[in-house]
């Protein structure tokens, strides 16, 4: 790090530009409103797909998914139909705190489990099955226990009732605040990164509470962001003239109209053949004769012979199938509305050594259509979650060494804090 000053990064998972803009305009987030006048506030384009794992992966490495290899929350393991959940081991590029000198405090960045050795301390964010492996150094575990630290809200409870959801959100947020305060003083850091993830959970469950001022939980929704704003203010107080402050989100959020099950369409159109053997789980149901199947978040993969055990697509057939499927989805309508905004082939959006694992087609949906990867016959259905991701994240920066490019994307983040790194 070349700066004499320190870097502070605050992440708020899943907060769209429009939301934080509105909240600061309307006096809910007054500290942020003040900050807006002191620095640069822009829309930031999220990754494709706009999922926390891919996005944060891009953010912390500064590299394209074709380079770091994380294309979504889940992926299919090469040579099998087995579903895996990416974690820190899966990254093919290093995070910025592993690459560069200096001491780091990294709190709650999603997809960084298990925590690995580094200079400073690291607490990983969701998904972290085992707390013992989510923390570096291990000696911090005791402190975390004292503070009743939680990595994530218990979504099950969220599904049960909003009351429980808010309770979970509050407890998680407060513990997060406690730990940041403790670590702020405990370490002599050069870069401090703190991510709030409750925002994403809250927005998924209760986006309609935000949109509708008369909603029962509208105020509680706003209270959550008031609290975050308080902490923003608190942190702003602590930093000095030479220090830089960057705030960002990994993706945005909008109202869900429907969950769209791409596999149902693929099956109907004859591209997907599925076994009805109950013992086969998830994608192991894929039968020989399948030409394409879909994973979560709009990713479509061709069932290539060379890549999958029951693959049947030869190299020569690839292009034809791709253009067929592309055309089909471009024309797809649900209740008179166009579903897909854009269909990308992999080379259009990805580049790098991991491009072979990239989905052959990535669909970007129109507003309100949440693309799912279940194997089912149901084409579309309503969702219990009112919020779904979109690509409109935000980024903010202040400090003399911070410069935000025009039309920033998540790939640009690392350069905003690392001037000297080529």
């Amino acid at each position, binding site marked *: 790090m070349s700066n004499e000053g320190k870097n502070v990064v605050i992440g708020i998972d899943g907060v769209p530009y429009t939301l934080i803009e509105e909240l600061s305009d309307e006096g809910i987030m007054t500290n942020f409103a003040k900050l807006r006048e002191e620095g640069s506030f822009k829309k930031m384009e999220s990754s494709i797909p706009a999922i926390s794992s891919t996005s944060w992966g891009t953010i912390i490495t500064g590299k394209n998914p074709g380079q770091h290899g994380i294309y979504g929350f889940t992926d299919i393991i090469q040579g*099998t139909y087995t579903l895996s959940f990416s974690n820190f081991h899966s990254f093919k590029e290093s995070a910025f705190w592993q690459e560069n000198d200096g001491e780091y405090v990294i709190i709650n960045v999603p997809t960084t489990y298990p925590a690995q050795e580094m200079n400073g301390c690291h607490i990983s964010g969701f*998904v972290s099955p085992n707390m013992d492996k989510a923390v570096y150094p291990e000696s911090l575990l005791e402190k975390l226990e004292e503070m009743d630290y939680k990595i994530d809200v218990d979504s099950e409870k969220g599904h049960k009732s909003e009351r429980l959801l808010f309770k979970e959100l509050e407890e998680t947020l407060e513990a997060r605040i406690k730990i940041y305060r403790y670590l702020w003083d405990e370490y002599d850091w050069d870069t401090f990164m703190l991510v709030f993830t409750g925002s994403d959970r809250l927005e998924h469950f209760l986006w309609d509470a935000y949109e509708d001022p008369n909603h029962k939980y509208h105020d509680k929704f706003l209270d959550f962001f008031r609290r975050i704003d308080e902490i923003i203010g608190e942190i702003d107080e602590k930093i000095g003239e030479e220090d830089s402050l960057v705030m960002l989100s990994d993706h945005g959020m909008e109202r869900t109209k429907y969950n769209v099950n791409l596999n149902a369409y693929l099956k109907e159109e004859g591209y997907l053949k599925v076994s009805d053997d109950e013992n086969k789980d998830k994608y192991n149901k894929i039968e020989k004769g399948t030409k394409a199947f879909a994973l979560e978040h709009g990713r479509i993969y061709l069932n290539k012979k060379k890549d999958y055990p029951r693959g049947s697509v030869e190299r020569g057939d690839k292009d034809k199938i791709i253009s067929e499927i592309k055309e089909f989805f471009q024309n797809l309508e649900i209740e008179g509305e166009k579903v897909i905004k854009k269909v990308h082939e992999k080379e259009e959006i990805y580049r790098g050594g991991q491009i072979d694992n990239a989905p052959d087609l990535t669909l970007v949906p129109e507003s309100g259509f949440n693309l799912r990867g279940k194997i089912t016959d149901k084409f579309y259905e309503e969702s219990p979650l009112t919020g779904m991701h979109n690509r409109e994240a935000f980024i903010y920066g202040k400090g003399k060494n911070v410069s935000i490019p025009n039309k920033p994307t998540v790939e640009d983040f690392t350069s905003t804090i690392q001037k000297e790194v080529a």
Partner: protein
Amino acid sequence: MSEKLHNAEKTCWNCPAAKLEGNVDFRACGQSKEEARIGSEDKEVLIECKRRPELGHFQPTITFEQCPEWEESEYGYKLKDMRVLILGMDGYLGWTLSLKLANNGFDVAGLDDFTRRGASEEKGAHSIVPIYPIDERIDAAKEVLDVDIDFQQMDYTNRHELKDYLEDFQPESIVHYAEVPSAPYSMVDADHAIEVQRNNVLGTLGLLWSMKDVCPEASLVKLGCYDDETEILTEDGWKLFQDLEEDDKVATREKDDREVVFQKPNSIHEYDHEGEMYLQKNTRLDFCVTPNHRIFTQKRSNRDYKELRLESACDVDGERRVYDTGFDWNGEEKEFFTLPAADEDSEDVSIPMDTWLRFLGWYISEGHIQQRDDRPNNYSTIIKQHEDSESIEELEQVLLSLSESIDANMNKNKDDEDCYRFSIGSKQLANYLDDLGKSDEKYIPKEIKKLDKNLLEKLLFSLIAGDGWKHRPEGDRNNFRYFTNSEQLADDVQEIALKCGFGAIVSYSESKEGYQVNICQTPRVHVNHNEDKTDEWIDYDGKVYCVNVDGDGIVFVRRNGKPVWSGNTMGEYGSPLTGRALFEGIFPSDAVLQWEGKEWSMGGELTPRNPPSFYHVSKVNDTYNVYEACKYWWLRSYDIMQGVIFGVHTEEVAADPRLRTRLDVDEWFGTVVNRFTSQAATEVPLTVYGKGEQTRGFIALEDAMQCMVRLISSPPEPGQYDVVNQVSGVHKIKGLADAVGEVANDNYGMDVEVQRLENPRVEADKHPFETISRKLPNEFGFERKVSLKEEIDRMLEILTRDEIQERIESMKDAIIPETQWSGEKEEPDVIEVYKPGEKDHGVYEPKLDTGQEDGEGSE
């Protein structure tokens, strides 16, 4: 199109590299609770892979075929560089296996504390194939085979040291060859018995706890042993089907002739039957047969036996019928009984058979031996009877006759309870009778049971007079009941009663805690189907036995103590204690125990064992420990019920003299084929114990190694304890002696003979008759590669070399057994000598059921 390897479809669940700990919470007794949660997605069981951490968390559904860490090999898919730890690496099997594994892409390490080398020295018997010290062996392995084997000297029962080692090496499979393997060794004296149990049972227990702590995903492959049971009348009495020795003769008859003829069956098969069975069960009958089975019965309307026919169960169902549960017997006529001399000072004495039998009946029922402490040379045989007994005079007369015959004194006294106490003072008599056992072990000697009907009647009535009289049902002069604590005696009394022409049934009385023999005047049993229907059709899923005998194919079988003549197939039904098929160690899931109208599920339970030595007991005990560990901690284990391993050859040990594995021929450690072959090599007569008709399962060394590699390559699932029978052929001991002798004489121009010695092993008469070994061929792709004679030939080739001949000469004495099962050491008697192949063992050949088309037998 290439055939898929047998374990291609196994998944991460079977793989030791799959990290379940921390991802899946295994609760006690097999309930797992997954802990991974992914937002609001469906909850899954997720694992991490120790070898491929970059995969993140995933479902354990990758197959061996799909996974790049698993590679094809001639033994199925195997884990690349799988880390295998061999406990007992320096031994006969341990060394051979370590070379085989190292030579086939496994990462091999081993431990040994050289107990085996020490025990062999204790016995004065070294390996007759010279073997090298372990470090030279390992160097040779590197030089010749280019493999690295890691060795450390350690006593595996030092569990702290062992645990540290395990934590360091992180084995993915542990082969446990570190148990003391010798039955005779364990019977020498208390020290040896205790040492065997300590080493085997406690050692294994320590190992299990260490595995749980530091390498719970490793599978434990160990050697077990077992025993099993079912019934048919043979010349030696009732025998469980599984205990039949090949030369046993079973009771048969012709349709029109009630005379029983004992003959050797041509074959005995056991197979699965799922479907209906016809069950006939009442106070005097109990049989369960397949629908087409031929039941031997006659229509009720006929008066005599002449109309007995074989009819199918379907024809008999619902009809009135009569069954014949007895037979005509013509036995040996003997005039005198010889009472053997007690010591050098006395002589054999001849006693009129009549007198002897009448006495014997009384003695067995009512007598005992008494030795007076103050007069150590004074032995009394005592029989007591209450003065009100009707038979006092008869008894007195018998005892007088006897005492005259043996020139002893008889005293008659009355005690305070109005009992007459007759005593005969004779050491010779007492010595002989003492061998007949104490009250719950009493039995009737075989030679007596062979006697003719008219003689047996005398015995029978004396027995009854001595005991049964008291138990005669009220007012019933035609039927008798005989009661005893001894199961064997009950069987013997039934047998005698049947031979006398009566009907007889054995049952166990809970209230009296003993066995009851109900003897009825007639063996004809009427079945009335109008009222009190006692037959029914049942759904059955289990084992069925098929006995093939010459003639009409009618055999005499017994279930739950109730005998009947039957056509030659019979089903298996009823209480597990007297009729249980070979379940390869564990009851199937639908096995059920029935008693007094209640039922208990036996599914998944270990089948009961009946171990015949302290070594065998140690194996049974540690089977329980392993079973429990798998249950509590989700460890994984294969328990290999091994046939006797013989031979010296694998590709690896033959590659260089320094790589040779040991070959033991002494009584403690030498297995039978190895002993015979070395005896043949020095043209010493081959020693066969007892009748030599015990049937055992065998497997050549090379084939055993093939099995082991296959099992190691295809590990069990978490929590799975699986029993696998490892046998590639069944042979009778006598047949083996013949085979060895023939190869020696034909291929090496020798002149070898076979000699029969008295049997030092208690278990000889009740040895399991292994027929089923299906898992290895069916689930693990095993195929036998080496025949008995091939391996014998290979062994002889080595053993006839000059340097080996000298070694054998020096060990000749070690080859005669000294250990008697009761703990005393004696030189056994030679019973007979003959040339191999000379004795006709009959057409009967044992069958090995591998579940495949060419059932393999002996050669």
